[in-house]
C-alpha cells in the first residue's frame, strides 16, 4: 500500500547532496513510499538559527510544519538528520503553551505541531523492514565490505529522536546486510565528523573525520555508508584535505545508503548519480561487479 508523506528535502538537497535527494526519491518510489514536496518550503535555519535563538529556529521550522499540516499526509519525512533534529525539537518545544503562542504570532498562522516526523531511514526501516526489502534485491551487493556511519545526531538525543539505539544503532547495518553487503563492526558509528566546524576550525574536522577514515581503512572496508549530507561532505569532499593534513592516502568512497540501496534494487544509474561523489566509487563498485564508472571530474 502506498503511504503518502510530506517531504522536506532540506537545503543541501538542492546543491551539495543532490545525489542524496535524487536517490532518496527513487528509493521511496520503488518501496511504495509516496513523497509530496512541501510547497514553498523554507530553510530550517540549520545550526546557526538554533545556536543563536530558539524562537528564530522554531519559527523557521513552524512555517514548514503549518504548510505540511494543510496537506493530506501521514507525517513529515526528511533525509537530513540535521533538519530532522530541528523539525522534531521544534515540534516538542511547541508543546509549551507560551512558546507555541509566540511562534504562531511570528509565523502568522496556526501551527498544530502534531504530525509525526521521521527520517527517511526510519520510515524505510519501520514501514518496509529490511527483510521485505531483501526480497526486492535484484543485484545483491555481495563482496562489498562496508562500515555504516550514522553520525552523531541521527539517533541522539535519544528522547527527541526516539529511533534505534543511541550508542550502537543497527538500522543501517541491517539494511546493508539485507542488500547483500558485508557489514563490518565499526566503533565510530555515532562519533562526530566535525560537522560545520570545517568552515572555521578545519583542523578539527581533519582530526575527527580523519579518524573515521583511518579506522574504516584499517578494518578493510571498501566504502563508508552514510545517511547525513554533512557527514558525507566532510568525509568525501574534504577527503583530500584530510589526507594532506594527516599525511594519509585514503581513497575511500563515501556512499549515501540510498545510492547503494538503489543499486541493489536495480535502479537506473540516473537515479543513483554516483558521478556526483568526489572520491571515485569505481573500485568499490567493481567488488559487486557493477559497471566501472569514469573517474568523476574534480
Amino acid at each position, binding site marked *: 500500500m502506498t503511504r503518502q508523506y510530506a517531504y522536506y528535502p532540506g537545503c543541501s538537497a538542492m546543491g551539495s547532496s543532490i545525489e542524496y535527494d535524487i536517490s532518496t526519491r527513487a528509493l521511496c518510489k520503488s518501496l511504495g513510499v509516496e513523497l509530496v514536496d512541501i510547497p514553498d518550503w523554507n530553510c530550517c535555519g540549520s545550526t546557526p538559527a538554533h545556536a543563536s535563538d530558539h524562537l528564530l529556529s522554531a519559527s523557521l521550522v513552524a512555517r514548514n510544519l503549518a504548510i505540511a499540516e494543510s496537506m493530506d499526509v501521514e507525517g513529515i519525512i526528511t533525509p537530513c538528520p540535521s533538519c530532522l533534529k530541528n523539525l522534531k525539537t521544534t515540534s516538542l518545544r511547541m508543546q509549551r503553551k507560551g512558546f507555541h503562542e509566540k511562534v504562531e504570532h511570528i509565523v502568522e498562522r496556526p501551527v498544530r505541531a502534531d504530525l509525526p516526523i521521521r527520517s527517511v531511514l526510519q520510515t524505510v526501516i519501520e514501514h518496509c523492514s529490511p527483510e521485505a526489502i531483501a526480497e526486492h534485491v535484484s543485484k545483491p551487493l555481495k563482496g562489498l565490505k562496508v562500515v555504516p556511519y550514522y553520525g552523531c545526531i541521527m539517533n541522539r538525543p535519544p528522547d527527541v529522536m526516539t529511533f534505534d539505539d543511541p*550508542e550502537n544503532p543497527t538500522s543501517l547495518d541491517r539494511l546493508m546486510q539485507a542488500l547483500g553487503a558485508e557489514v563490518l563492526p565499526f566503533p565510530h558509528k555515532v562519533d562526530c565528523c566535525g560537522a560545520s566546524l570545517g568552515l572555521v576550525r578545519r583542523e578539527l574536522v581533519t582530526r575527527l573525520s580523519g579518524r573515521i577514515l583511518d579506522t574504516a581503512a584499517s578494518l578493510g572496508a571498501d566504502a563508508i555508508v552514510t545517511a547525513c549530507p554533512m557527514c558525507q561532505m566532510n568525509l568525501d569532499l574534504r577527503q583530500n584535505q584530510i589526507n594532506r593534513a594527516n599525511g594519509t592516502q585514503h581513497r575511500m568512497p563515501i556512499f549515501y545508503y540510498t545510492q547503494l540501496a538503489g543499486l541493489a534494487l536495480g535502479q537506473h544509474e540516473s537515479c543513483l548519480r554516483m558521478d556526483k561523489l568526489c572520491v571515485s566509487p569505481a573500485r568499490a563498485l567493481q567488488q559487486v561487479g557493477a559497471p566501472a564508472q569514469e573517474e568523476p571530474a574534480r
Partner: protein
Amino acid sequence: MNIGVFVCHCGSNIAGTVDTEKVAEAARSFPDVAFATDTMYACSEPGQAGIIDAIKDYGLDGIVVASCTPRMHEATFRKTLERAGLNKYLFEMANIREHVSWIGKDKELNTNKAAELVQMAVAKLRNNTELHAGEFEINKRVMVIGGGVAGIQAALDCADGGLQVILVERESTIGGKMAKLDKTFPTVDCSSCILGPRMVDVAQHPNITLYAMSEVESVNGFVGNFDVSIRKKATYVDWEACTGCGQCMEKCPSKKAEDRFNEGVGTTTAINIPFPQAIPKKAVINANACIMLSKGKCGACAKLCPTQAIRFEQQDEIVQEQVGAIIAATGYDLFDHTLYGEYGGGRYPDVITSIQYERLLSASGPTGGHIKRPSDGREPKNIVFIQCVGSRDPSVNRPYCSGFCCMYTAKQAILTKDHIPDSQSHVFYMDIRSPGKLYDEFTRRAMEEYGARYIRGRVSTIQPRDGYYVVKGADTIMGSQVEVKADLVVLAVGAEASKGAGALAEKLRISYDGYGFFMEGHPKLKPVETNTAGVYLAGSCQGPKDIPASVAQGSAAASKVQALFSKDKLASDPQVSSVAIQRCVGCAKCESTCPFGAIEMTEFRGMPKASVVETVCQGCGVCAVTCPQGAIQLQHFTDNQILAEVNALCPY
C-alpha cells in the same frame, strides 16, 4: 468526665503560626473540659510533670495533648498517664504541628483549625473506655533470611545468646557477596580468611539450623508466633550422604554450565560445589546444564559417587518452621551495566564488572589469581576503572550513591599494581566518597603510593581498536577531553535491591522504597527495625552498605531480637476488633475479608457467630466496615467514637 487539655508550643514549631493560648482558651468551653493550658514542650520532663500535677490537682480522668503526630509521642504521653494512675487509653492527641503549623502560614486560620482538632479529640475522648492489654506466649526462635556477612553475624550473635536460629540461604552456600571478594578495604586483608571461620562457626553451631538452596515461601502469624514455610529447592543430591569430595565435578562431562559463583568468568560443571570453603560443602546439580536431567542419559556422577548420593528424581520440598522473630538480611545485587550503550552494552569481552575483576584477582578464582583478559588470556598492562556505573545517574533510575564503589576501586587499583608491577591503572571518577575510618587515607595511598591515575570526569564511549580499547572521556579538572588506551576496562557497578526483594517484603508485610530496598522503622532512630513488629533488617537489603556497616547491623538486629525475647510473654495490643455477639448474624463476611485470618466462625447456642483471635488481629478495621450489622467494632476506634469526632466538627 474531667478532661484536661494541654496545647504545646513545640518551641516555635507550633507557637510560631498558632496562637496556642487562644486554642487553650477555646478548649475551656468544650464539654467536660475541666482544665486547659498551653505549655512550652509537653513532651519534656517539666511538661510531663505539669500534666501529672494537673491530673492530681484538678481530679482529671482524661487527657488531650495538642502537639505533634501520635507516631512521634503518643507512647510518651500514654506512659505519663500511667504514671499518674490513669488508664493509658483515656488519652487523645490532636496533631496541630504536621497537620496545622507546618503546613499553613495564616495564624488566624491555623488557630481556628487547631481549636477544631482539639474539639474533635475531646469529643472522642468522652467516648473512650479503659482498655487492658492481655498477654501471650512467645516462641524464642529466630529466622535469619540471607547468609551473607550481615546474616551470618546476626545468626551467630543470636545463637551465642542461646537462641535457636533458622538460617535460610537462597544459594547452595552461605557467604554472600563477601565470599566472592579477594581482599577487603581498607586493610587489604583476605576476604575468605576473615569470613571463612565465621562460615564454619555457622555450620558447627549447635543452635543454628541452616537451610541452603532454600527460599521463604510464605510467612503467617505475628510477632512471637510466626509460621514460616520454607521451600528447599531440589539439588538432585542427597545432602545427608554427600561428603563434598568433589569427584563428581571432575567426571561431569557437561562443562559449559553458568558459573554463578565466579560471576560468569568462565564456565563450570553441571554438578558443582561453588568453591572449596563452601558451607555447606555439598554438590548441587544445575538442571538446565545436566545431560541426564535434560536429555535422559549420562549419569556419570551417579556411577562414581562413593556414597551414592545422586538423586535425579529429587523434587522441591516445603518445610514448616515456627519462629518468634525474623531478621531479613537479603543483601543486594549489582547493577546491570548492559544498560549503558556507551560502555559497549555487554558487547566487548574485556569490559568487565568489578565483581568479575574480584574473581580474576582471587587466588581461588577461575584464573588462579592471575589477571588475564577474558578475550585472549593476555595479561593487561593498562587498566581503566570507571566509577559510578549505575550510581548517581538519574538517567538509569539510580540517583543514589552506592557508597562502597570508590573504596573497592581504590583497593582494586592497589591490588592490580601488586599483581602486575609494570601496570598502570586509570580511574575515572565523579567525586571520591571515602568517609570511614582510614578510608580517605586508603584512596590517597592508591594514588600516591601505587600511582593510580585518577581522572575526574565521565567516560563518553569505549571503542575497540586492534586488540585494545580506546576509552574517551572528559577531564573536568583540566577542562579537556582525554583518551586512554586500555587493555582491560573494569566497570565499578553500583548496588541495587536484591532480585525478589519486593516479593519477600510483601510476604513479611514490611515496606520497601521505590528502588526495592526495605524501609527501616525510622531513618535515624530505628535503623534495623521495621514497622512490622518482630521483623528486623540487617545489611544491604535496607540500602547499600560496606562490610563493617553490614556486620554492625547484623549485631544490632540480633540485639533487638535478644531484647524482644528477654520477656517470656508479650503484651497484646487491646486495640483489636471485638464482636457484640447478640448483634452478629453469622454471615461470615468479616471472616472472608480479614487479611490476617484473625476471625474464626464459632457456634453459640446453635447459631454461627464470628469470633476474633485477638493475638492475630492487627487492628486494621477492615472487618468493622464490612459488617452489615455493625456487630464488629474496633476497640478505641468504634463507630460511636468516630461519629462523635465528626459531630464535633459538623454540628449541623
